[in-house]
């Protein structure tokens, strides 16, 4: 199990690194691999750009810069991993106030 999580972590970061404009065929391979994990009940999530509040326990946050009421996840160090719809690994993220 630990090994699987390690592979998923690395793979999630790879997906992030490839960014949004990845080649269609690469996108497809990514989806295919994720589908295999999904069959095992494992799903990872990259909450990049999502709103952050202190009631979110799906991630552990490092707060960067000034704090205010409108915080956003700006960088991901580790993804959130679910197993059978329960979080087995909290994500590790950087959180910043929205730039005005």
């Amino acid at each position, binding site marked *: 199990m630990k090994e699987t999580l390690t592979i998923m972590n690395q793979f999630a970061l790879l997906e992030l690194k490839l960014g949004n404009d990845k080649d269609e065929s690469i996108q497809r391979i990514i989806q295919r691999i994720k589908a295999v994990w999904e069959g095992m009940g494992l799903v990872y999530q990259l909450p990049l750009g999502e709103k952050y509040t*202190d009631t979110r326990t799906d991630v552990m946050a*490092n707060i960067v810069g000034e704090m205010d009421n409108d915080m956003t996840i700006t960088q991901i160090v580790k993804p959130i991993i679910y197993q059978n*719809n*329960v*979080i087995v690994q909290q994500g590790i993220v950087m959180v910043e106030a929205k730039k005005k």
Partner: protein
Amino acid sequence: METIDYGIDLGTTNSLVAKYSKGKVEVFKNPVGFKETLPSCVAFRGERIIVGDKAREYIVKDPLNVFSAFKRKMGTSEKYLIPSLMSYYSPIGLSAMVLKELKNFIPEVQKPSSIVITIPASFDTVQCNATKEAGKEAGFEEVVLLQEPIAASLAFFNEKMNDAGSLGKWLVYDLGGGTFDIALITIDKDEMRVVDHEGDNFLGGVDLDQMIVTQLILPRLKEITGKGDIDSLINQRNGPYEKLYYILLLKAEEAKKELSINETAEIEFTFEIEDEPAREIYFEITRTAFEELIAPKIDYTLDFVQKIFDRNHLSSADIKNIILIGGSTIIPYVRKRIGESTGIPVNFSADPSTAVAVGAAYYAGAKIKTLANKFSEVSNETALERDVQLQVAYNKTTKDMEEYVTALFENLPENCTYRMVRADGGYDSGIKNASTKIGEFVLLKANAVNQFTIKVYDEQNNELSVPNSKIEITQGLFSLYGQTLPEDICIEVDDLNNNTTISEVIFVRNSILPLKKTVFKELSRTIKKGSTDSLIINILEGNQSVHPSANKVIGVIEINGSMLESDLVYGSDVEITLEISESREISVSAVLTFTNQTFNHIFNPMEKYISITKLREELKTLRNEINLSIEKVLENDDYEKASFLNELLDVNNTLIKDASTLRDGDLDERKYQLEEQKRRVAAQFYNVGINNSPVYDKKEKIQSLKLYIDHIMTYHNDVPETIKEEYNIMITANHELMKSTNHFQLNTFFMKLEKFHGKMVFNVPSLLINNFVYMQGLSESDFNNYKKVKKLFEQGEKAMEKSNHNELLAICKEIWGEMKDQNTEIEKIKGTGLGS
């Protein structure tokens, strides 16, 4: 007499709770995030109180409202002002919050009333009393204290306590996240005692992380980027490198742990500052460099050992062992250096992060409760009180990512707190004061049914049982008023092992529209470029458990050889995305990853799509199956059914003839008529009680194979126990599967059973003999090379006389190899090209 059983390591940086039961200790995990350790940290955010990991996030950014390391202040008159509440908390109050949170780690509904809590060897009477007080405030009625080095020692040799070799003087060296402690203990026959201790409250793993950043990472980074000002700016609050600093601290801790296993660790991150393009930084740090870096710190800890020696007039020779605990003692250099420099054997046989909690639980497991068990009284009392009532209002479905939940309490006792948590662990409201009316914005997971529980605690932090405290909110996708799918939507895939095709369900009946799903299939045969062969993606509507030909075709994509850019190779991937809109329009897109071709089709449910190739193929399959059924019913002398089947066969044969004259591009309606007639024949055949639908067939096969195996289990007395066990496990594990109506799952199970049967023949001597004798009874035509087989029979006889199981097995294997495949006479179907 009852024992206490529960123990808590109330640490400066991290706390844990463990339980002793039947000779074993279990360390409990946080129900959120599943970590064993809870950071000893409390945050006050507005009206809510947060304990643990979440609280720690705010240490740097909201220092006025976040409190940690208060253990260092236990027993002082120090008060912490909580600005948001305009009130004060004592170190005792804060410790109590941590203890209460740890209570939530304990899965048992009935929380313990007695507890063992560990304290540093350095704690004086006032500090001890303060710790007890914290325990009481957290709702423990009986608090027993235990010194940390003693707890650690207990964890190490709990089982060998009376072992003469362990009697004498020991050192316990504890290097954790933020503190360093060393204790000298004596162990004699019936006592373990701390004789002396030393320590530094501000030295631990966190300092090592910082050193890695400033002394190993930053110099390299300066070199690579040419930015000379990083040093001075890096840990400046709100400075340009603040984010980088946090990332580097995380990377440093990761690398540090990596270096506990490997010789080198990678440092990899993105260097980003405003107005400059981001760049990827990568380099390695070596264990050697790390060891050089931390050597002075470790030597510094050894000075304390010397102090203890001097004060007690001891030398290394007087010490039996040094026990290492605390996460930082995992570092190989620490282990090596301490051993080498003191010359004392080093012991690190238990998990250094949990040893104190584990030891506390061992101690608790032997400690008799002085407190009478009050559980029964308590429950009588509460029964007299009126139960708490709860009414909750919220939207059951939403497209938003958060939802406001309000709740009204009745009969709520004084000073209760409440907390809302999401079942998957992704949301926690924190602890809040409960009043008659409460309201909370809960966060939702996208496209899921979100389950929440409202937990209510009394003043002693005992959870009250509250009816209606579970709520469910559905986010996204599932709109409550959406249209539902009237029948299963399937694609047809090959089951070449059984010489047929099956319906594989994509969307089940009653799913709510719109729907979208992508499946991946592998080609079950090669399709040559330019050939007339084709890959058929057949979208069916109907029932997933019947044969595809009895289902309605609602869309088909036929990709033939002439459309291919290169050969489509066996085993390559086909990605099929199926989308059904709310108006039931179906779009199918198929991507052949091997040739990188995409085929998109939108099917309107008002039209019909018929592939002539497919139609012919299906009629052929139908003919085979009807033929087989006729044989079967004749075996049972069921002439009535046989004649009915013969009629169907006649109809089918006419259809085959008609279909052979169809041509692509024919404009008339003939193919629609033929398709309709075929479906009618199929439906009659599969539904009229002939009962050889693929599902029924499989079930029957499974049933009879299972009966056979059961029989062997009961009547053969040479079945090894391991085989019996394996069988029982398999049957229990697949109990639900056997009731399934899904051909797919049944097939998987059948294959498992068959495989197991094979294994039995290998492992049960009497069964192998049966099998051998059975083969001897077969006729010549059942084998390929009968001459060879006859010789093998002779050899087998001899092996049997000698009761040589292995030899007989080897012979049988050869005979099996010569047996003819019984299915060869049946005409093989070609299938769709999609593997199952």
